[in-house]
């Protein structure tokens, strides 16, 4: 039995941040356990931009954000074990681990951080009647199959729920040449960030059906369509071959089940999405890092760590009115409009004005995509936002490019594909 000061369960953004925070604040003998074969949690499948805005002040993709954290971790003495699934947390900080390489291990620690992330509410939990055919996926599962697996999961998908992941998957499908039939949202307004509604749905012409819900599935072997109940009560049949549900995340708290109904033991600290669902990775990581630092100090006689967490962003702005637009520079989604004397009003920061002026001339967006190189999925991104009109030519150039492994993060694989002054770069190291 090996004793640690701190064991962090889960190598996603929150887990890595907690381990980093603890190490930086002086904790030693820190172990990070990750069930998958690599660090990052869900980040590797999140090939879109939007990460790191608060932490690094940059538009990073999921793989890039994960790589930065992993690189920082490497510079510490934190011990990292992948392929190590925690099966049980027991009294006194006992951690039972199933390891693909070392079998069954029991480890102990003075403190345990649970950063197991979230799971998605499955379609089975929803009051949807009808058959149970193939072709029903959760949004995160769809993202995994599309981006990491390189699979086609349907030609005409309906997306249920306008959460951020659902909208991001909608855009991915559109970029893959299979725009979804519609996004169906039960509430009278969009569930995710305004910037995602604009960039992922509106700019791709994907209908968002508000105050509507999927009530019934049809199709015996593979999904053939869904019934959608609209606001006015009428039911529409939408032919489709996939239903992608984005109806909420639940904290992955199954390791906490033995403790439910009682106060959590003093050595156990849930954080990140395993504690409560965050809207942004940056915020989950910031809270986790703080928790890590406080645990380190507590282990050295300091006050007990606080268990509360930061607040989410303000609710998404309502749709823009005439002459208004939503700033896409950060999750705040400020509502911008022309101000007096040629100025811009509504901007929460200096980026807003520049964004507003650029939009008057030409819309520019980040393009990310994934190509398969010698059987390995390689995520790519443009090095700057590009005119929307260039999405097609740039994506085609990426798919035509003859690439060979290994490829390194930041490596330019296609130079100026749009003849416009932007390159396509690799998001993360892809060894051969």
């Amino acid at each position, binding site marked *: 039995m090996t004793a640690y000061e701190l064991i962090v369960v889960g190598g996603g953004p929150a887990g890595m941040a907690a381990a980093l925070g603890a190490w930086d604040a002086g904790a030693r003998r820190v172990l990070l356990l990750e069930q998958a074969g690599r660090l990052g949690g869900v980040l590797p499948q999140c090939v879109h931009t939007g990460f790191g805005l608060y932490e690094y002040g940059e538009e990073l993709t999921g793989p890039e954000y994960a790589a930065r954290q992993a690189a920082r971790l490497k510079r510490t003495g934190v011990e990292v074990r992948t392929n190590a699934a925690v099966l049980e947390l027991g009294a006194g900080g006992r951690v039972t681990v199933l390891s693909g390489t070392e079998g069954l291990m029991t480890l102990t620690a003075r403190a345990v951080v649970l950063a197991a992330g979230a799971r998605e509410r499955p379609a*089975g939990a929803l009051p949807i009647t009808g058959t149970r055919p193939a072709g029903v996926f959760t949004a995160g599962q769809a993202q995994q199959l599309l981006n990491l697996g390189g699979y086609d999961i349907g030609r005409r998908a309906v997306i249920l729920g306008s959460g951020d992941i659902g909208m991001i998957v909608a855009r991915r499908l559109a970029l893959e040449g299979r725009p979804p039939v519609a996004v169906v949202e039960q509430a009278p307004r969009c569930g995710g960030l305004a910037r995602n509604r604009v960039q992922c749905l509106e700019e791709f012409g994907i209908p968002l059906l508000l105050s509507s819900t999927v009530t019934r599935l049809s199709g015996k072997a593979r999904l053939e369509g869904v019934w959608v109940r609209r606001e006015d009560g009428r039911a529409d049949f939408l032919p489709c071959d996939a239903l992608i549900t984005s109806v909420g995340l639940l904290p992955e708290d*199954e390791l906490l089940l033995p403790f439910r109904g009682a106060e959590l033991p003093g050595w156990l600290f849930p954080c990140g999405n395993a504690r409560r669902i965050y809207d942004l990775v940056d915020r989950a990581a910031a809270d986790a890092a703080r928790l890590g630092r406080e645990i380190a100090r507590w282990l050295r006689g300091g006050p007990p760590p606080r268990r509360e967490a930061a607040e989410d962003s303000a609710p998404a702005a309502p749709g823009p009115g005439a002459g208004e637009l939503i700033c896409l520079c950060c999750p705040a989604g400020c509502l911008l409009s022309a101000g007096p004397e040629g100025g811009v009003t509504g901007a929460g920061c200096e980026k807003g004005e520049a964004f507003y002026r650029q939009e008057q001339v030409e819309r520019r967006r980040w393009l990310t995509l994934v190509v398969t190189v010698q059987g390995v999925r390689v995520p790519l991104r443009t090095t700057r936002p590009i005119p929307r009109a260039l999405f097609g030519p740039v994506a085609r150039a990426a798919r035509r490019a003859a690439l060979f492994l290994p490829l390194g993060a930041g490596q330019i694989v296609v130079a100026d594909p749009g003849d416009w002054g932007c390159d396509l770069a690799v998001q993360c190291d892809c060894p051969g």
Partner: protein
Amino acid sequence: MGTTGHFDAVVIGGGVLGCFAARALCRRGLRVAVAERREDVCTGVSRANTAIVYAGYDTHPGTLKTRLTVASNRQFDGLCRELGVRFRRCGSLMAAFGPRGTRSLEDKLRQGRENGVEGLRLLDRAETLALEPALSPAVERALWCPGVGTVDPWELCLAAAENAAANGAELLLRTEVTGLRRQGEGYEVETDRGTLRCRAVVNCAGMQADRVAELLHRPTIRIVPTKGDYFVLDTPAGELVRHVIFHEPEEKGKGLTVVPTVDGNVLLGPSEEAARDRDDRATEREGLDFLRALAAQVVPGLPLEQTIRTFAAVRPNPYEALTDPATGEVTLSHKSIGEFMVTRVEECPGMVSFIGVKTPGLTCAWQLGEHAAALLEPWLGHPGPDPAFRPERPAPVRTAALAPGELAELIARDPAYGRLVCRCRRVTEGEIRDAARRVPGAVTVDGVKYRTGAGMGRCQGSRCTQRVVELLAQELGAGPGQVEKGEPGSWLVRRTEDDGV
């Protein structure tokens, strides 16, 4: 096609009845084939039901149904030990909430005692609530039957299939019976993959059993399908229920059944609705609403928000088929037949048909199998017991149930048992590979799910399906795009052609 051959008996249908019939015939040293239309066993009536092992107090004395249920229940622990199947003898409470229900419990107590069911007791409210806190305090009386239990229907059916196969039965999957003919002293069973010659036929074709029988002889019994909806609740809810609960309603109509499953989930259901056809497994709003309303009344503390799945099951209800001798027109009896029907017609010696076997078919499947084999003995020349027959089936490893030492040892032998695939049910790569390698092995994602539990937990496969598809593809030597969810056409993923923007 290669599916030809000569057998002592051909069993039509690879459900729980067919698999146990095959096993019973193997026990007698006979050459047996099972013809199953689908790609796997246990895909029809056996696949979805209430998972209860009944005790035999709610059927009439003296019937075959009662005799087999009582006998089966008594020996069910032994059967499950032999076949390596999990069985939870949790007992049942039939709960009454008023005078009509209470009268019914008293009748069932009398009937049960006459049937030879042991341990039955009528409880008052306090006793009932002490035994089963999940029940509403409005309960008045309950009939406690300690012998009732619950079993995983797939596990039971697969165990029977594996054991039959291990004893020499040939499982002919993706083999649909298209014709039946008398041929000399035996039969020719025509399939879409060739002709099987045999001396005896056991028709266990489930929802299609009447149609199969009528390939050969006049209508005797016809099936009218009905269906019922179910809720499956997550395991924390499972800890709240200790017994199978049968709700005896005050008004005429269907009550609610609540089952704590062997996996620790709760099964709620079934409702009862007309089915559009024999393959109608669509859940209905009315059915689910009906169950929800009953649950609020019977087990009000049960958290329905912990639902992880809803599904519907079809049931084959047998009706007597009356043929008008003048016109040849077939009309059905007014009432469905309550008894198990074992159909043998004079002009077809050597053929036994089970048409419309429903509740308690799961409980009695193995007894019905033995019953069929025994009925065929004279026709097959009184075969004696086969000394080479091995009734034991080695159960697959479930790493979640292993002691730490055993698991460590297993991983040392095969590291695949250390690689977790399904987090919710704690299923490892080793278990999934094993599921594909057994006989009959998993060839679909549902096949893996029924054998290992992967994808059956609270995330319903949203995290493990890709791994399962890829592992199964490796095991089958196929591409991931060829791995289907279940029935033909139920594709999950395809390889992306680069046809994007």
